[in-house]
């Protein structure tokens, strides 16, 4: 366990995890400076900041960074920004908040990453383990920063990791590492697919032969990423019935060990859709390391109702079902959400462009033929990619979009808010976007 007493620590980025990391280091007796490029007034979480922590809004200066003993990097800042590069050259350790936390944590970690479904699997794992009587910490990329787990009384930590968080880990060692799937995302930050995939792969880097990998057997990219790592593996598949691992034999879910076989009825699950069945398989496999009875874990999984803003049924009005999928911030997740719905569908999409390829949605659009309502900064680009397949309507606000959808969607159809973009052009977060959407629907007569 590293000793932070008296060390000069610079925390870069005053986001949720940055503030938590700064407070943690301060409690351990370090001299902490929290650095952010925004003016202090623009930073939300400052009220929680320990008064002993210095705040520097000068914009990540060399003077500050190159004199630090340790830099804690927020996932929002890439490793390749010049000041960080110079710090690394000067052999100053640069850790992410995850790396910091993992050096202090003494409980097993279940780490979950992938392009889509990681929040659902993380929450589901948390739910299952809690029902099985564990003191579970659930956090990471969703909700509570992992560093908060260090001073808590937990038996296991379930942590969702984004590719950004994985960039800045070095010795992070999860007992269970789950890689759900890989599809193009965040290409505004990564130069190309290989570097995005390389970041994801780091989740396996420090695992040993006694650890476990949970892998999606249907995704060749996932299998290739895990190929050369020594940990044991459990695979899950929705396309093939596996000799060993979890697979679907609808309406059953099949779990085969070397010595036992379990069969569960998928209809008992609250979660719906093929992608959710994959999520359940991944969660069961991940939790299996804790030694609970499969039947008890299944029972817990059946109770789980899903996450808000993730294919959440907000209201059924005049036979039209309204879904909030505000957390669908990339094209892969829009694709999965659309697949789960029967036509006619009205899709509301758009937001801040992340540099993804909207043409990837074309096969599903051709199949489902939704009418599409666009809003936000990415609308033009989306219109160019989809205009020849679907009927498009441009709107300037969520209110306008909801009203148009209300007037133009016939029963027994569905309206789906699945933006395929981040929310930062019109809303402060995907949650706010989803709440605005839900409120507008509740107000409809």
């Amino acid at each position, binding site marked *: 366990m590293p000793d932070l007493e008296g060390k000069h620590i610079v925390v870069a980025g005053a986001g949720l995890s940055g503030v938590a990391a700064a407070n943690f280091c301060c409690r351990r007796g370090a001299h902490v400076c929290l650095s952010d490029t925004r003016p202090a007034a623009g930073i939300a979480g400052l009220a929680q900041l320990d008064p002993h922590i210095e705040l520097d809004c000068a914009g990540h200066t060399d003077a500050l960074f190159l004199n630090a003993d340790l830099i804690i990097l927020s996932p929002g800042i890439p490793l390749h920004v010049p000041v960080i590069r110079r710090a690394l050259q000067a052999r100053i350790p640069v850790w992410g908040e995850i790396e910091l936390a993992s050096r202090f944590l003494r409980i097993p970690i279940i780490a979950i990453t992938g392009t889509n479904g990681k929040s659902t699997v993380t929450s589901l794992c948390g739910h299952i383990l809690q029902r099985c009587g564990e003191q579970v910490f659930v956090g990471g990329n969703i909700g509570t920063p992992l560093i908060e787990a260090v001073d808590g009384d937990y038996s296991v930590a379930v942590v969702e990791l984004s590719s950004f968080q994985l960039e800045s880990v070095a010795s992070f060692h999860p007992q269970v590492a789950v890689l759900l799937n890989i599809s*193009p995302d965040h290409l505004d930050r990564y130069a190309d697919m290989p570097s995005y995939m390389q970041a994801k792969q780091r989740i396996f880097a420090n695992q040993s032969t006694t650890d476990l990998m949970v892998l999606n057997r249907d995704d*060749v990219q996932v299998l290739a990423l895990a190929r050369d790592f020594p940990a044991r593996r459990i695979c899950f598949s929705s396309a093939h019935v596996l000799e060993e691992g979890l697979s679907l034999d609808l309406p059953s879910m099949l779990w085969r060990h070397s010595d036992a076989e379990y069969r569960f009825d998928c209809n008992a699950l609250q979660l719906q859709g093929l992608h959710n069945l994959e999520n359940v398989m991944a969660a069961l496999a991940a939790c299996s390391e804790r030694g609970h009875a499969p039947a008890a874990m299944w029972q817990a999984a059946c109770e789980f109702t899903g996450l808000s803003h993730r294919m959440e049924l907000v209201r059924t009005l005049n036979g039209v079902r309204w879904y909030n999928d505000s957390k669908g911030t990339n094209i892969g997740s829009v694709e999965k959400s659309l697949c789960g719905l029967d036509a006619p569908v009205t899709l509301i999409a758009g937001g801040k462009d992340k540099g993804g*390829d909207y*043409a*990837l949605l074309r096969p599903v659009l051709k199949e489902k033929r939704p009418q599409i309502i666009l809003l936000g900064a990415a609308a033009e680009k989306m219109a160019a*990619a989809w205009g020849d397949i679907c009927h498009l309507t441009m709107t300037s606000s969520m209110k306008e979009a909801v009203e148009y959808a209300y007037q133009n969607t016939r029963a027994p159809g569905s309206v789906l808010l699945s933006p395929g973009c981040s929310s930062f052009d019109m809303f402060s977060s995907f949650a706010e976007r989803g709440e605005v959407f839900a409120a507008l629907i509740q107000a409809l007569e």
Partner: protein
Amino acid sequence: MADKVAKKGKKKQPEKREFNATILILAVTLTCFGVLMVYSSSSLMALREYGDSLHYLKRQAIFAILGIGLMLVTMHINYNVWRKLAIPLLILSTLLLAVVFMPGIGVKAGGAARWVNFAGFSFQPSEAAKIALIFYLAHSATKKEDRIKDFKYGYIPYICVLIVWLGLMLAQRDLGGAAIMAVVTAMMLLIAGTRLRFLFLSLIAFVPLGIATIMAKEYRMRRIMAFLDPWEDPFGSGFQIIQSWMGFGLGGLTGAGLGDGEQKRFYLPEAHTDFIFSVIGEEMGFITVVLLICMYLCIVVMGLRISMRAADGFGRLTAFGISLLLGMQAFANMAVVMGIVPNKGLVLPFLSYGGSSLLCTLFSMGVLLNISSHVEKGRVQ
């Protein structure tokens, strides 16, 4: 089929035969299939980069029409014209190969300087130069007749030309093209009657030179290492070949369906040029892959038959050179895409995106077809 036609033709017009219809049909079929696959493999990238998913399709379609037109015209031009033009064409193409290095005209792409800008289109001189070299070798070797066995007359001049050429191609970072041309030259000289020991001698001289060339450039060593174990660097030099394998694996026997491949989307770089065969493997499946290999083999075998029955020595050597060039390029590209030989940046004739390659391949097919329409003088059918 050609036999029947030849027999029928013998009675009335002994020196003329029908064109080899098989090659004609295969060339047109492959070209059209290529346009389709270029569209499938490039549309997403074209939309991303140019805002027009048809960008590469349009260009390839124009080149296909021009190329097929060129082939149809060339097949009616007596191939002896090329014999007369052999020396001027050789000089012209050598100049063009050198022009690539002139600033303002030469264009670099992917680390390789192989293109010349001309009237809005970039043109790759090495493609045309390969055919010019074949004409020259065929012409010169025929002219020399028995002196070809002589070291001074039958060997030294070719080695000099070849060294200049290989130098120019290597300077363009086109090791693959240079290697293929060296083999084509050697094989043509062998057929023309050069003594085997001269060729053996050159082999001994060239192999260390080749190894030194590979060692000299870091990227060449990387490609060789990536070939030996792609998993050594799966996100760097090994990435392309791993993704190519995945394409063939995902395609299985019958393929994922035209346009439905995953690999071309983000994973497979150069999907519409060097690695189009992998996209075909994924979308059309193993059966189509085998069928395509058979089509190339068929053209090569037909070409060699044309060579054996050609009316004169120039026709014989030219047909041989063209068939060998096509066969070797196709084989080399497929082998690269399947990870059997190291990546050398070679396109697949007929199928890969690229105007220069398509026009030159179809032109060479036109010449081959014309040779097929002439019967050997005095040959007893």
